[in-house]
């Protein structure tokens, strides 16, 4: 393959990944890194660098829409970003000292977990009647738009959520992913923030988290323009098309198919890591 064909092929993969990522809420990054590594034989460090950049692109695009519609909670996002950015800088620093086969295995397990999360139904947990002291102090209570008008909510267990966010940031920095799945769990399951607010606030935070580790990756020479260019442009194209088709899409079926693809890639990554092929 010459450079034009190679670029075109990556653009296509990234467009499909961005499209499915937007429809399923998994984000495109999770499949691009393994696809680059397993299909095209790209070194894991280049793949991580290129994907990290695309993660910022999808986050900024989606966040622009959600913030406007009033779903994302900017205060919660801002406070938790202290944890995710610290984690991300640490994770990105650890990444260069970690053997690539270990990175591949960790990546595989995170993928498996994301696939499992995305195919699981999300029952809305009953909302809390009051907030904990830290949440009140940090003015985290807010409301979000629903078809029945604005719905107010309270926030619990800020400390536990904060620690989990540090972990999410570390994984993001280590693997060059958005780690949206973990961010959503911290907010939705632990802090009891409504699911819709959790997912949109997570999206809002992903860009800042990824930017924190992107500096480290750029300096280490992991970000290759020839590779990142088709990935970024493809993911943007895919998520624009995806967002347009979201209302009529059968997301349940898509989630299942996408979940299976991600799981297959995950197992392949773990296998390649253990056998030392990556």
């Amino acid at each position, binding site marked *: *393959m*010459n*450079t*034009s064909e*190679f*670029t075109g092929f990556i653009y296509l993969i990234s467009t499909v990944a961005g499209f499915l990522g937007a429809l399923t809420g998994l984000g495109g990054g999770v499949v691009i890194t393994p696809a*680059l590594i397993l299909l*095209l*034989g*790209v*070194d894991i*460090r*280049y793949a991580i660098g290129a994907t990290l*950049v695309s993660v*910022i*692109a999808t*986050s*900024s*695009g989606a*966040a*622009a829409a959600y*913030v*406007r519609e009033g779903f994302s909670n*900017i*205060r919660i996002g*801002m*406070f938790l*970003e*202290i944890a995710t*950015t*610290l984690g*991300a*800088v640490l994770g*990105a620093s650890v990444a260069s000292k970690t053997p690539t086969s270990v990175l591949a295995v960790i990546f595989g397990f995170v993928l498996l977990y994301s696939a499992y999360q995305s195919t699981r139904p999300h029952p809305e947990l009953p909302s809390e009647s009051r907030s904990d002291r830290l949440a009140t*102090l*940090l*003015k985290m209570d807010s409301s979000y738009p629903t078809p029945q008008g604005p719905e107010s909510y309270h926030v619990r267990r800020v400390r536990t959520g904060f620690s989990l966010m540090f972990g999410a940031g570390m994984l993001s920095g280590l693997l060059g992913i958005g780690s949206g799945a973990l961010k959503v769990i911290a907010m939705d399951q632990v802090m009891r923030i409504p699911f819709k607010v959790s997912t949109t606030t997570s999206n809002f935070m992903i*860009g*800042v988290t*990824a*930017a*924190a580790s*992107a*500096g480290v990756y*750029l*300096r*280490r*020479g*992991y*970000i*290759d*323009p*020839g*590779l*990142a*260019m*088709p990935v*970024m*442009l493809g993911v*943007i194209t895919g998520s624009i098309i995806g967002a347009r088709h979201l209302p009529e899409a059968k997301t349940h079926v898509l989630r299942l198919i996408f979940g299976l693809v991600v799981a297959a890639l995950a197992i392949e990554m773990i296998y390649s890591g253990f056998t030392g092929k990556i």
Partner: protein
Amino acid sequence: MEGVISILLQAGLTLAAGVVLAGGICYLFRHGTSHPDYRVFRGEPTDLRSVAGILHGVAALRCRDLIQLGLVLLIATPVARVAFSVFAFAMERDRTYVVITLVVLAILLYSLAGGLSGGLR
């Protein structure tokens, strides 16, 4: 505040994508028929690792540096969002969040400032 943040993110993304696209077209015109090799990790040359190096390369009309400039603009977009939030919280006289946002901004700048100093290990 929400309105400005939304516009800021959208504008940053559009600008970055435009620059990357321009650099990409130029890159494919010049290197389209060469054979890429990403199997072995060598790391990027130092001019592609720092903002100063990238700007230097863009001035020398190098396509890969133009793409890299677009990527740096993309990375800068969320940073600009945080910087604007400091100002927005200050306007709302919310001291707690001015401090929180400044902490996040400091961490981001700490990480990115390393990028400015070039091929530092």
